[in-house]
């Protein structure tokens, strides 16, 4: 499965990046390709390319705040969770994503 997504937390300096790492780790463990963009206080980093988005089967948003560029995912199945879920339950979240993608 190919996944893209965005992480963004309130302070935009720590949890944004922890959530990204946890999700990437969990996705790789489960054998999925994942690309995650961060929208921290510094601005957008690891920006998703059009190609990555076009190829993705699923969009995961681990965000506590309003994010930019949601319209890029129009028509895709989108799952939104708070960053803490991505941080504390990344593997369980990945399983859930697999279920959702199958539906």
């Amino acid at each position: 499965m190919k996944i893209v997504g965005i992480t963004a937390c309130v302070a935009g300096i720590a949890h944004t990046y922890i959530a990204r790492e946890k999700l990437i780790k969990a996705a790789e463990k489960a054998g999925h390709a994942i690309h995650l963009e961060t929208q921290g206080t510094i601005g957008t980093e690891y920006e998703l390319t059009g190609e990555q988005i076009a190829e993705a089967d699923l969009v995961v948003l681990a965000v506590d705040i309003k994010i930019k560029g949601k319209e890029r995912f129009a028509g895709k199945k989108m799952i939104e969770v708070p960053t803490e879920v991505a941080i504390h339950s990344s593997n369980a979240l990945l399983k859930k994503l697999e279920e959702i993608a199958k539906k």
Partner: protein
Amino acid sequence: MKSLELRKHAMTGISYMIPYVCAAGMLMVIGNIFGGHTITDYRAGFSVPDALTTLGGDGLGLLPVFISTFIAYSIADRPGLAPGFLLGLLCKANGFGFLGGLLTGYLGGWVVNYLKRVIRVPAFAEGLVPQMILPLLATILVGIFMEYVVGLPIIALTDGISTLLMSLQGGTSILVLGVILGILSSIDYGGPINKVVFVFVLSLMTQGIGAPIATLISASMIAPFGLTMGYFLSRVLHKNIYSTQEVNALKSAFLMGCCQITEGSYPIILNDLVRITICTGAGAAVDGALTMYWDCASTVPAGGFFALAGISHPELWVTSLLIGSAVFAVLLQFLKRTPLADSDEPETEKELNLDSIKISG
């Protein structure tokens, strides 16, 4: 009905606000350290510290505008910015303060979203909707509501407080006055109630009665100091009541608190407004009673620790601040909600909270 997502919008606003508050607050702190004063007439000449203090102060004064703008933006996207900004200015002008700015942010955003759905115009006028009609109408509607519905009780409240304070001036026990001054100065974190008290105690100061203003300065510092002391107390007790984000915010909150700037504490206070405000009220009540009882009089109207030079019995003034903060800190241990545990335990995964997942598309 779609959930209102109150928390998410407030958090988005705060997320934008944190760098703003840090920059403005630190400008003021640095300016104050080097003896800066607020500039009233730029042509009369000023020093660099004066410029820093003034810019920082102006910046913090515009906080209602900033938070209102970005909450409205979070709710209504671009069309929310203009009404959010204008309504924030209304809050600043009326002295509705930061909490007023929060309110106009929500109202402005929702009204824009509602208008977006219901307004239908002929094709030739479609461009006018986002450019003029949405921001104008939303600002008028929420503006009228703020002035005549929200504003009236606030005016009644502030009038009532003035009358109360006047009536307390003669006769009443100094302790009661201290308790009331302490609570009123602190519980709205520099909002309209605090401003009324400030006007009242400032007029007393000009008449040579300096203890009430010293009480106000001290009570305004209770929130940042109490939060700081509460943090260390929680560490000593091995209670985990601060999230990592809050600990980060606490550093600048404390520094700004030293200069009697409460705004740095907002990111923490707003996570748990009611409970923390109970702590603030209790701490400030004790603090107010003590400063009045010990008759710590100030000849300086503001400045936190930088006012110390103008306060009589400075050691007692600091003592009462510390005791008040300690009351806050102890109460906080019981009241503050425990945040979700922090992140770095790799293999102990929490059960997935299915309610928190939103699926679309």
